[in-house]
């Protein structure tokens, strides 16, 4: 596993945190961890929803000073 990649999508509206994560996932290897930073509260829901549909894994999700951190692992 490589170092955890940060996907910094704070204060951006388009394409937005989940689209940034999807693009980053394509470049990642199986087993890689990615941490999305988002100021969109909706990320706490839509990122896990997509991760579950595709079959990856959410490792953690928390709000820190108004920034959502969603940590995921590429599983396939």
């Amino acid at each position, binding site marked *: 596993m490589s170092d955890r990649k940060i996907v910094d999508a704070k*204060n951006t509206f*388009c394409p937005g945190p989940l*689209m940034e994560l*999807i*693009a980053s996932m394509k*470049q990642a290897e199986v087993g890689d961890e990615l941490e999305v930073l988002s100021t969109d509260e909706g990320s706490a829901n*839509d990122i896990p*929803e997509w991760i579950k549909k*595709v079959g990856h894994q959410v490792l953690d999700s928390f709000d820190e000073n108004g920034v959502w951190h969603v940590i995921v692992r590429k599983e396939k």
Partner: protein
Amino acid sequence: MKVLVIGGGMGGTIFANNLARRMRKELKAGKSSITMLSASDQHMYQPGLLYVAVGKMQPSEMYRDQTSLLEPSIRFEVDPVTTFDLDNNYVIAKSGARYDYDMIVIATGSRAHAESIPGLNEHALQFYTEPDAVAMYKQLEKFEGGKVVVAVGVPHKCPMAPLEITFMLVDYFKQRGIWEKVDLHYTYPIGRVHSLEPVAKWAAPEFERLGIQYETFFNMKEVTQNTIISEEGSEQAFDLLVTIPAHKGMQVIEDNGLGVSGFIATDRQRLNMEGRDNVFVLGDTTNIPISKAGSTAHYEAEVLAENIAALAESGIAPRNYDGKVFCFIETGEGKASYAMFDYQNPPDPKAPTAGVHWFKTAYNKMYWASARGLL
């Protein structure tokens, strides 16, 4: 000061013209120079491709000679870069010529990369190059009805393209009198029909009103002759597949190790390449997580030109790029809307009007003044 601009697209052109005007005296006195290197002597108005794909614009309307758009004080060479030596402040171009610089601005753009999905290039219509847009229109002309699927890759150039091509297809099929025979199925990678939530909230009811089916959380995985399969496990049969493919930056960026997938890590406010003070990046070439759109490149170019002119004069760069983006949204039925936003302010798109559509139609011509830095 020697300024080298790599790329003659919207960002590079607006930047170079803006800077040339700001540095007129220095350029005239020979104290500074601006050189642009491009892969083509032609400048394409890329949003025109969308119109070519549905027969509303001819390819020739999308082009002007690049030299006709540039300030005379700018040296222009059709000589694409092959090697960047950022440690030693020079590039080597295809001709073998070496170009030295004090400041370099990289604006090489992005390209559709349908090859990333097995079968997509072979079985889908796309419109991100002139040949592809013309081929799409030829296929549309032959189409007499059936199921049309729109599929979207990430990241892609022009965030409104998925919606616009969908609405424009509805208009096209209606004008041909075959809309009743078409089952149009729109897909989108995330859990709503557009990345901008207010736009998605407007578009979904429009789809329902027009009878367009839609499916969210649909990321392309594989395409066969008449079926597209998503990473999420869904399958859609199609008679025509129209795609907005995922994009990559240009190969030369990857070949020189400047950025993953051809996108250069760029400071989102200062627009310098991370870790380098005299390397700047514009438009689609950056990895900044905002829209890959002409307006992004336009607003970035204006900020950067002001900063570099100020650096040359006083050593101070006064402006930050604020993330401003402006996108027209062609919504069909002779109407359009727009979305405008920046890093701090979300978009608040208004209901589509005929007036905005006509303004967009006018902008398709006014663009050439914009590229010259006059608008």
